């Protein structure tokens, strides 16, 4: 396994995703001799996981079964241990596209947080790109570094434990893109400009509050950034169900239509409750002049 390369078989040290059904899943670190408890019984790594193909069905001790999935940044985002608020795949997808990330891109990010976006960036820029990520919280920085090693993606990422607003990204004129998810992004715009390549690049800042966006946009204008746009993306999910509507009794048949009974059809119903706001995404380009 690797987060940047598919492999067929599960092996020692892999992070695998155990899928219990209907969105219920959790990650495991595959180890010889290790056991994992689920509500369907125990999974013995040596017997049930190692050497098996990803995507296969694993029968647990009580007879119930689960699927074991190859890790991806998207599955990791749904299963990672939260140390902070995280970005979800809906925001991540538009960030990745609007920052024009692709294999070979050099990216600066701050803060690292729980590493949700970091994994997605690494996946996209590998095998020839690099991520420079800055986290001022020492414990979080360390934990992120550990995870990158466990996930065998550490060669594509450098974690720096410093304050991006004071000390910047630790690199200068190398980045194709900069991403900011910090409380006061306006204080880091100058450093972002310095981190971006001389010939230009893209910037994105994520903020939950409109006041933060306003100050960021002002700072972007002062530093000569152009093409400044702010947007918000919302996910709407639908449950697929069979719906029944009883036909009304109008008192006898006038025409050949069925008088009584039900009309049945498949529908997609919006979830009862859904995420209404995560944050505003402000994008800009570094100007050449």
């Amino acid at each position, binding site marked *: 396994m690797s987060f940047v390369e598919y492999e067929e078989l599960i092996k020692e040290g892999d992070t695998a995703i155990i899928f219990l059904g209907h969105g219920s899943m959790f990650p495991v670190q595959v180890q010889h001799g290790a056991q994992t408890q689920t509500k*369907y019984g125990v999974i013995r790594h040596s017997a049930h996981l190692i050497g098996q193909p990803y995507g296969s069905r694993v029968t647990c001790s009580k007879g119930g079964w689960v699927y074991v999935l190859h890790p991806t940044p998207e599955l990791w985002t749904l299963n990672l241990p939260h140390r902070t608020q995280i970005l979800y795949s809906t925001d991540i997808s538009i960030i990745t596209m609007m920052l024009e990330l692709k294999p070979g891109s050099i990216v600066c990010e701050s803060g690292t947080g729980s590493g949700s976006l970091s994994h997605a960036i690494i996946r996209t820029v590998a095998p020839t790109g690099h991520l420079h990520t800055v986290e001022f919280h020492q414990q979080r920085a360390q934990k992120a570094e550990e995870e990158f090693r466990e996930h065998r993606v550490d060669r594509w990422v450098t974690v720096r434990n410093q304050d991006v607003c004071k000390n910047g990204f630790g*690199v200068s004129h*190398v980045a194709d893109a900069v991403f900011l998810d910090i409380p006061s992004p306006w204080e880091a715009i100058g450093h972002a400009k310095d981190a971006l390549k001389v010939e230009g690049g893209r910037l994105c800042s994520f903020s939950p509050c409109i006041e933060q966006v306003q100050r960021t946009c002002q700072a972007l204008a002062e530093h000569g950034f152009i093409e400044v746009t702010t947007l918000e993306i919302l996910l709407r999910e639908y449950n697929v169900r069979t719906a029944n509507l009883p036909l009304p009794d109008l008192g006898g048949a006038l025409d050949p239509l069925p008088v009584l009974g039900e009309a049945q059809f498949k529908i997609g119903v919006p979830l009862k409750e859904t995420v209404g706001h995560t944050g505003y995404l402000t994008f800009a380009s570094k100007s050449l002049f």
Partner: protein
Amino acid sequence: MEGTKGEGQTGGGTMENNAEQPRQQDHLIRDGDFVVLKREDVFKAVQVQRRKKVTFEKQWFFLDNVIGHSYGTTFEVSSGGNLQPKKMMEEITSETKEAGIDNRNIVDDGKSQKLTQDDIKALKDKGIKGEEIVQQLIENSTTFRDKTEFAQDKYIKKKKKKYEAVITVVKPSTRILSIMYYAREPGKINYMRYDTLAQMLTLGNIHAGNKMIVMETCAGLVLGAVMERMGGFGSIIQMYPGGGPVRAATTCFGFPKSFFNSLYEFPLGKVNSLLNGTFSSKALPSESKDSISVEENNGVLLDDLQTSPKEMEENIIEVIENNHPQQETMEVISQEAEYKEQKERGNKKDYIQEFQKKQEQQKKRQIEAAALLNERNADGLIIASRYHPTPLALSLLEFVAPSRPFVIYCHYKEPLVECYTKLRERGGVINLRLSETWLRNYQVLPDRSHPKLMMSGGGGYLLSGITVANDKQKPESCAVELQKNEEPIAKKRKVEESEDLP
């Protein structure tokens, strides 16, 4: 840690073996480059060629002067259609800080502008710079000083937009091209909004090294987006309906030739024969059976070439141009040098030989594509077409390995509801999700921040999921999910015997 080896150096320093060209030159516009012209929020994709007249937003000009400048440079159209680089200017802050508080005394009598239409035309004909015309309009507006500061701002912006035509030359990317297509040719891409495309690339875990199957009728935009994310690493098999894949939008990306080495195409019409094992390579280029009619002249010969994907492109572009002469999205696409030469040379025998050679090559590629598909171990499937998604999904998923994501786009929700149900019946898929994204743009200005416009409905829907090992003998294998989704009462899990255990 290891990863720090490249820090502090230029991007090129950390590159491993991908140095096709000196990277530091990549930001300069070269002759023959595919570029995108940008004016305000309007885009147009063109190929840079010397002495070639380009029309964009009711102006015509030549691109000769953009060569050698950096991408992102802004130009101004001068007389004779030459483009002159323009430095970014400081916003002219109106020296007269005079402004009104409200509009209670502003009356629309249609006489506030003292310059007549003819005066303005005369100014333009004299070749006076746009910014000066704007200044004159302000000076000759009797109400300007009474307008509020915000209204003055808005007035200037509006006039600038009209009279100061500046054009920025930008590098093509999925971001630019998908925004361009959605704004200008949404019908060509099945109304797929750019945020929906972004979701597809992420949900599909598109990245370097993948072996992807792509079935699209989005002018090659989705293919191009997948190619960009794969960066020339891995392989793509494009399934196409009809005589050949459409790649008009793909061409706009200006990918290096190497990206096409691992791009295969396979006719959709042969999928069933491939699945049931009756596929034969002999039957392959059946569309082009009636080879070239030798007596015809060159002009007609072109029509016979439709089976060849490359030439197909050019036809498509012509169609675009003919159908939408007023729309200027893609003017230039692929000018195959050899192709042109042949056309001019008019040597029929050479031409036919060349054609047969191409046919042979095409056949060989299709056999390679068939072999790749037959391994049934693709790393993902992307469907975005004008066809009903269900039969496509049911067939093409057979070529995908277990534990891989797939994403299906449809402009409408209902076919995806059906597809969802059919996939459940088939089994071998989990985590099915039917979704849509809404995109909201904001105006952010001091004291004037608000949402710009609501985009909804028109962006299309996605059905995504993950493949798993499909035990055909046990169609009830998805019982758990079905129960949970449709009958919340039935909490009990179907207990399977441990046949799978070694």
